[in-house]
């Protein structure tokens, strides 16, 4: 027992010494990097001029602690702008995904009604169906395929000539559907 206890004690001391040595080895260069290039101890960070080897406007200085911390946050996933995951639809094999109308305006004189929508998933296999309805008026329906972007997708645009729409309040509805996902968004527009 005594011997065992001694061995455990020795092992524990060895581990502590190794940990301390490694800590110093890591701490010294880290201190050097941060202290000499950061604002620690009130020392000045090298200016852009001092570090700008090509004398251009590129900042060749080391990343600031704020920049590194922001990067760490991205890496850890705490500050990423990730669309919410699709949610199951009861009684359907498909999942629900957010669809939102981003543009429902005529942005030029007598220009078409520009209707755009984003889909909260990356998918270029779906179909978007636009339905424009207004009480007492003929419904306008158009379809378009989808195109994936970096983190979302979009319906392949709807430019509806104003000549197809008489004056009044219209309800625009976009129905997105693919083999795996579906979603809907709607919004009123005053023509």
């Amino acid at each position, binding site marked *: 027992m005594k011997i065992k206890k001694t061995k455990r004690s020795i092992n524990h001391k060895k*581990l502590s010494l*190794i*940990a301390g040595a490694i*800590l110093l080895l*890591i*701490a010294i260069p*880290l*201190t050097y*990097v*941060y202290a000499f290039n950061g604002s620690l101890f009130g020392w000045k960070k090298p200016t*852009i*001029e001092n570090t700008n080897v090509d*004398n251009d*406007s*590129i*900042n*060749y200085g*080391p*990343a600031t*602690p704020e*920049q*590194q*911390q*922001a*990067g*760490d946050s*991205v*890496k*850890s*996933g*705490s500050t*990423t*702008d*990730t*669309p*919410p995951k*699709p949610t199951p639809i009861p009684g359907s094999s498909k999942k629900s995904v957010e669809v*939102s109308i*981003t*543009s429902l*305006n005529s*942005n*030029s004189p007598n220009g078409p009604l*520009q209707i*755009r929508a*984003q889909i*909260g*998933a*990356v*998918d270029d296999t779906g179909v978007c169906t636009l339905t424009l309805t207004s009480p007492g008026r003929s419904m306008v329906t158009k379809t378009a395929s989808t*195109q*994936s*972007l*970096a*983190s979302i997708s*979009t*319906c*392949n*645009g709807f430019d509806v000539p104003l000549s197809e729409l008489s004056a009044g309040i219209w309800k625009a509805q976009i129905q997105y559907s693919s083999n*795996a996902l579906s979603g809907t968004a709607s919004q009123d527009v005053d023509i």
Partner: protein
Amino acid sequence: MNILTLNIKMTKTKSLIIFSVLCLFSIILSPAISHASPVIGFDPGNIMDNVVMTNSDTMSVSQIQNFLNSKVPVCDTNHAGFYGSSGTWYGPPFTCLKDYTENNLTAAQIVYNAAKNYNINPQVLLVLLQKEQALITDTWPASYQYKSATGYGCPDSTPGVCNSSYFGFTNQVNNAAKLFHSVIVSSPTWYSPYVLGNNSIKWSPNDSCGSSTVYIQNLATAALYDYTPYRPNQASLSAGYGTGDSCSSYGNRNFYLYFTDWFGSTYAFVSNGINYESVFDPVYYLTNNSDVAAACSNNQICAFNHFISYGLYEGRQSSSNFSILSYAYRYPDLRAVFGNNLTDYVAHYINNGRAEGRVAVGTSSLQSPIVKLNGVDYSAIYDFEYYKNNNPDLANLIGKLNDIGALQHFITYGMKEGRQAKASFNVHTYRGNYNDLRWVFGMNLPAYYMHYVNIGQQEGRIATGIPNFTPIAWYGGTDYSSIYDYQTYISSYPDVKNALGDAYDDTGALLNFINSGMDNGRVASTKFNVNYYRDRYPDLRAAFGSNLKAYYMHYLTKGKSEGRVADTDYYGGTTILNGVNYSAVYDFNYYYTHQPDVAKAIGLNDVAILQHFVTYGMKEGRQANTTFSVSTYKDHNSDLQNAFGNYLPDYYMHYINYGQKEGRVAI
């Protein structure tokens, strides 16, 4: 867009080590990250100019590599491994982006190639790598970060949809570049959920946070929203690089922050064909000009327009590296060319000065004011600060920078006007002190300045204080001092005094006397009055008549040495007529005074008076001086009576020719 929770697999020893390191990190980092600076100048409708996004020439491969090296000086290759959220083990060795290669191409080369292929600014791609996966600053990036380096196409939110063809660093960078390119060139095969104009943009992925209307002004901004379809809210912007609230998004905020911190403004800042990027830092300008920040609501374009329209002309510093006034203050060669034209200094720095390594900050007062022009050093008589401070009428001309203009003014006008430009040289004192110079230069004031510059200073001549003024009285080899005195002349004739250049214009006074004063009979000395002189000497009147100047010159050349008198009034009428000297029997003044009928009839004409005496006076027996009376002479000289009878002129003539010499009684 991957989210991988770091499940650290640790032994006790590793735990101890890592905990210690993390403690050290927190100690080192905590002071720095506790003060997040709010984002300044973020415009949700114009996050980046098109020309900035499409400038693919901003960095070479080596510059990209240097940039990557600078951000991760030391790579933590052997960092502890960890399990990802999907249970995948990510262990060392870790490869930092600066060392990463794919298909034998470095990350720097891959970024460069994508930028060139899609005509996108490589800086945009570098910032994208940071904002999506922190690859620029990460000292131990895991393989998944490279697989989804730009977060393109495979978010966890769409399981089963993700296309693995997007995987890989090169793919990620190329797809990102392609997206930006497609939007910005309005590719007909590319669709964007955003249009130029009003758009509804969500605050964050959290749908319950709602959206805001953003007027997207350009395609570069639309492309950024294509990539990250959220607008950072105020909490996000107020946090700087930090964390906002539950409705905050960070992608576009971080893109803006990283870009501006690492590569400068996201705006081109071009006006009239000049790119002001190297002299205008909108964040600096807004931060250091609270009035502009308030008027512009921290909008960068508004700040730039203010700088171009007002700030530049007001000499406001526009970046930490460029101050117009500092630049102009430091370089006299530029001031010699540009004077007060501030826009020229800016253009010079942009086009030449920066490349020449000229410094544009750190100088708060004008350095080495120009004192030389066309090879002449005016420093002996000219000091910029003295001239500026003592000639307030030149304030508009000189301004803050126009030392060359000030010197040119001094040379062209100041010297002629006798302006003092240095405490140690007063041209009037200099003139007053030295009549040898006045003799040569007269009222040519610039000649005095230049004499001092070229000779006078070396000779130790004095140019300050009350002058030791000795007026000149000689000219053309003639000494006029016996007929001319400067003070007497100018005090007697105000018109002369008024016509002179200044109180020391003795040459002007003397020349006036010589050229007109003598002709007009002006009295310039208490020792000589030309009227007295003329009146006194009939011989001179006979010789010079009404040529007054001749009397002056006669006195100078002969009269004075002959002892002639010129300072008291006396009229010396002639006594000689037709070669006969009647002075024994005739004195003009006596005759003129005692024969009032003659004086009244003839006037003060000594020759005519004498002619009257000879023609009539002697016949009539008129007495013409105090020493001869013809009646007395006749009465006392009976021998003459026998000879001349009653013809009286013969008595006069006898006395003249003989009687006076014989001592005969005549009075």
